[in-house]
């Protein structure tokens, strides 16, 4: 965990360029820092506990649950890949996350652009239709989707999971991109059009690059959500598939009742990519969260 933490302590976007005078910390500020640090430690304690125990054997864990690892060994990590479907599940999760994000970026910004630039009643209707999806919980469409995928022979394939995710994420994407597109002047596109660029080319070479800030926020939110999702793969992937990591871990909980160390190991490995995504895109992340969140 410590190495990861160091990675994340990169300069903040808001840090001032000029070296600022070091003001003395007041007592109040020190107290606040201590309280925050303690709070973070408490919140992180289950994960830290799992991390420590991923280096211990089942015997050690049950004999002394509060003990610390005595030796540093990656046996559990090796065993996890050798004796369970975890490796395959990891690949599945990767495929689902990457394909869904790529497909979303291929269709959603374009659709939002169409909605914004066509204008008029048709596009307002389409916009509202998309936004209505935000209020439809997944549980509402779950049963008919299973039925439908079963009928066309796609049940328990990664394709079904990807398609379900695409539909679910489209509403949020349209909302995000439409509000962002409002701020982009149409004149630039018209100039491109006068220079002979077609609509499609105008979009991908002129408009899409301008959407980068919102795209990065969208990609990060979706990638994390897809990686962490449990319900959708649980419903659409049966035992004929290795499932995603979360589904695989859930099956292990049921099957390997005396292999706690593997569960802890799997849980830790599932967290690593999320932290990596966050570390890589931290600046966009916090910016993206703040964009549009501030009222007025």
């Amino acid at each position, binding site marked *: 965990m410590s190495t990861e933490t160091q990675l994340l302590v990169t300069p903040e976007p808001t840090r001032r360029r000029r070296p600022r005078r070091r003001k003395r910390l007041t007592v109040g500020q020190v107290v606040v*820092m201590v309280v925050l640090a303690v709070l973070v430690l408490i919140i992180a304690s289950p994960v830290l506990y799992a991390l420590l125990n991923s280096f211990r054997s089942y015997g050690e864990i049950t004999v002394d*649950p509060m003990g610390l690892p005595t030796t540093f060994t990656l046996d559990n990590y090796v065993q996890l890949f050798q004796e369970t479907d975890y490796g395959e599940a990891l690949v599945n999760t990767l495929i689902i996350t990457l394909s869904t994000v790529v497909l979303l970026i291929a*269709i959603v910004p374009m659709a939002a652009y169409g909605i914004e630039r066509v204008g008029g009643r048709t596009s307002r209707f389409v916009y509202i239709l998309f936004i209505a999806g935000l209020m439809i919980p997944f549980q509402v469409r779950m049963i008919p989707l299973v039925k439908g995928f079963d009928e066309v022979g796609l049940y328990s394939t990664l394709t079904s999971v990807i398609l379900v995710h695409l539909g679910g994420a489209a509403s949020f*994407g349209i909302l995000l991109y439409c509000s962002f597109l409002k701020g982009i002047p149409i004149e630039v596109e*018209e100039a491109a059009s006068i220079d002979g660029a077609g609509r499609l080319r105008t979009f991908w070479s002129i408009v899409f690059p301008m959407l980068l800030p919102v795209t990065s926020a969208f990609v990060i939110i979706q990638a994390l959500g897809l990686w962490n999702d449990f319900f959708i793969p649980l419903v659409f992937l049966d035992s004929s598939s290795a499932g995603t990591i979360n589904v695989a871990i859930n099956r292990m909980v049921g099957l390997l009742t005396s292999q706690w160390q593997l569960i802890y190991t799997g849980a830790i490995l599932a967290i690593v990519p999320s932290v990596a995504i966050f570390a890589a895109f931290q600046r966009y992340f*916090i910016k993206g969260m703040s964009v549009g969140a501030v*009222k007025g």
Partner: protein
Amino acid sequence: MTDQSALQGQTAVVGAAVRLTGEGPLDGAPEGAADDVSFVPAGPPIQQRRTRRFRSTRWVMLGFIAPALVVYLLMVIVPSLQSLQLSFTNWDGISPDYDYVGVANYDEILTSGRFWNAVKNTLILGLGSAVIINAISLGVALMLDHVGRWQGLFRTAVYLPSLVSAFILATIWKYLLNYNFGAVNVFLRDIGLPDWARDWLGDSSIVVWVILFITCFTLGGNTTLIYLANLQSVPQDLVEAARIDGANSRQVFRHVTWPMLAGAVTVNMTLAMIAGWTIFDQVMVLTSGGPGFVSETMAFFIYKVGFGEYRAGFGSAAAIVLFLVVIVSTVAANAYMRKREIQA
């Protein structure tokens, strides 16, 4: 990570619904009209012609919308309507045919103690965690705002735990709470409180509260960030003016900062509530709805009935009820909180 903090993408997705009642991108004058007025009349004839050619590609633009729209219709709108249709049938989820039974499913739901228990649990878990997580997040954001040095470092540290998914966290907790070898009970026995050790997830009188605790046991990372962004956008001259007038810190918060945060509270509470209505992962992992049906939530009830008990028609009816609850509560909560915002 709980579900609350946008619970990850899913939540974030749902979250945006908040702005439904606000101004949408297409509110006001139609885009095209405004552009024509400002652009075309001013230009020379040749430019006018080109602009028209530019606009005549309306069908191309509709083609831009088509792929996303088709996926969305097939994956969201059509299945939702099918769900409505199935809710009037006795379909078991497997056999090819089924009969229409009118509103029998709805009748059964509304008189079923099991369903109302699930509603009660959903209220405790969804609303309870929404309130608690928002309170903690606001407190943390206030502290972050006052931390002075190393704010970025602390902000990152506070956000990190929320990268862990609800599923993973619940799984770890399931083992921490194991009766014999779980760290919690062992710790309690070690410090001389063996009476406090108990079967946390098997005791029907406390199990829902244990799940609530675990659901809240995270900082709402996104929630905190939204509060922090809003706190930092509070104009400093307002705060200074209040201070010059002799207000103490508490009064400044009550009369200056808090009213300025009203919008953020609306957004965060609505987000957390929508996520709370569909709380599932924690229940599935920790108790599978047990002991008995004690800890079921509405989302879990739909899953269990639809797939586990082969009553897809009945499950669909429950899903439609959930849908209505989400719509009504979101709209009502938004209306109430917006009203409060204006008064503040």
